[in-house]
């Protein structure tokens, strides 16, 4: 089988996999880019498409992609309920773009019947910037990560319209709209660190996984 055409290898040869076991939800989207970053940071990475694969990891990344497709497939293949249980049980989960939508308690502008897994006490608006012509890249100050600013790419991205009392905003655009949030072991960004070589959000997430594993 030839898989060499695809964009990123799952397990880079030069990484040492001594870190925690981290899964990437691989129903659709840029899961290989996340797997690559996590592998480079030393995590033991696997792709998750089935409930038993979720049982084998200590943390999970939900990638960028089309949230309505991830929602449908996760419910059709019996993954949605185990994912909700894992989130409720305290598993660290990081969602980018579609992943943030999946983690939001409340959605705006979802397709008919679309559900989220929930966990983050936020209201998230899907496609908040409009069409692809409005997709953009910019630099963001993220105090939790320090300097330099994060170079963030927004691809038909969502925004956090309101942040409930349980969640904490981590970054905002110049106009004040929130684009990164945290709540306990959950982390969500409207943008895609996995495609810009920005590793600090993944390090921040892996620290949550490590803290939970060693506890």
């Amino acid at each position: 089988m030839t898989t060499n055409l695809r964009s990123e290898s799952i397990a880079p040869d030069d990484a040492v996999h001594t870190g925690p076991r981290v899964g990437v939800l691989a129903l659709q989207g840029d899961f290989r880019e996340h797997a690559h970053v996590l592998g480079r940071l030393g995590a033991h990475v696997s792709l998750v498409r089935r409930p038993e694969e979720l049982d084998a990891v200590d943390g999970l990344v939900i990638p960028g992609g089309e949230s309505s497709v991830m929602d449908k497939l996760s419910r059709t293949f019996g993954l949605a309920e185990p994912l909700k249980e894992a989130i409720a049980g305290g598993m660290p989960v990081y969602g980018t773009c579609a992943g943030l939508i999946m983690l939001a308690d409340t959605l705006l502008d979802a397709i008919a019947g679309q559900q989220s897994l929930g966990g983050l006490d936020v209201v998230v608006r899907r496609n908040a910037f409009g069409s692809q012509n409005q997709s953009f890249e910019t630099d963001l100050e993220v105090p939790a990560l320090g300097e330099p600013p994060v170079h963030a790419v927004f691809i038909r991205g969502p925004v956090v319209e309101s942040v409930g009392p349980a969640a904490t905003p981590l970054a905002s655009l110049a106009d004040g709209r929130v684009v990164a949030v945290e709540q306990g072991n959950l982390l969500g960004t409207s943008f895609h660190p996995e495609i810009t070589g920005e590793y600090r959000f993944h390090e921040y997430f892996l620290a949550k996984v490590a803290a939970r594993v060693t506890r």
Partner: protein
Amino acid sequence: MTESSVPAPVGTSLTGSSRVKRGLAEMLKGGVIMDVVTAEQARIAEDAGAVAVMALERVPADIRAQGGVARMSDPDLIEAIIAEVSIPVMAKARIGHFVEAQVLQALDVDYIDESEVLSPADYVNHIDKWAFNTPFVCGATNLGEALRRINEGAAMIRSKGEAGTGDVSEATKHIRKISSEINQLKSMTRDELYVAAKELQAPYELVLEVAETGKLPVVLFVAGGVATPADAAMMMQLGADGVFVGSGIFKSGNPEARAAAVVKATTFYDDPSVIADVSRGLGEAMVGINVGDLAAPHRLAERGW
């Protein structure tokens, strides 16, 4: 290669950069993009789990059957489809028809397909895709053609296959050809790469990049003749990042069921038990045409250069 991506200063934002254009294709990976000719079909596609829809006036099977010049769709139709769904909407412009592309950008489509399925408007030049804010996907039958399109600014490539046939053999041929040519580059020394660039008729810098990374610089989907869940899974096993399905869905007996089945088979492309399950009871597949029975002048894949 002209690289339009430059770092943006803090507080300002940049649209239409290579990273932003290629980024949307990255997010479509592992998904199915479906041809639709009405808002109702777009709704069915979104409900079935399409990652995007391709708006066009006639599906390739009808263009083939009816003949005549095939052009960009009516703006009213494209706007109706954009209004109907919230997933990305792509639309086709004729090869070289930069004004159709300007119109599609003005209509705010998410991706423009400079497509051999429509009648070419220019038999020499393709569109200068760097001049647009909206990203482009282009067809290719081999690596050299893919790299020429990327050099012109394409942010995504789809192998062409033979659209409107329901015969997957050309799609197989093109993805295997691109894969094999990439593998050959990987084993070459630097001095051999100069000759390879000449033979591929592609810029040396792009040839070197492919040789070093072992992949195209942009996402590669497969198109042209995919009609069943197993077809889609086979393309994924051959290394595709995702699948376009044109006539295969809405020319079949049960479009809703077939569309959902192709989506599931694309995600679980390496699990024959899932592919078997989703392939049951789908009704009739599109009747199709064997590519071997098509006279050479009627082969769409030979358009584009």
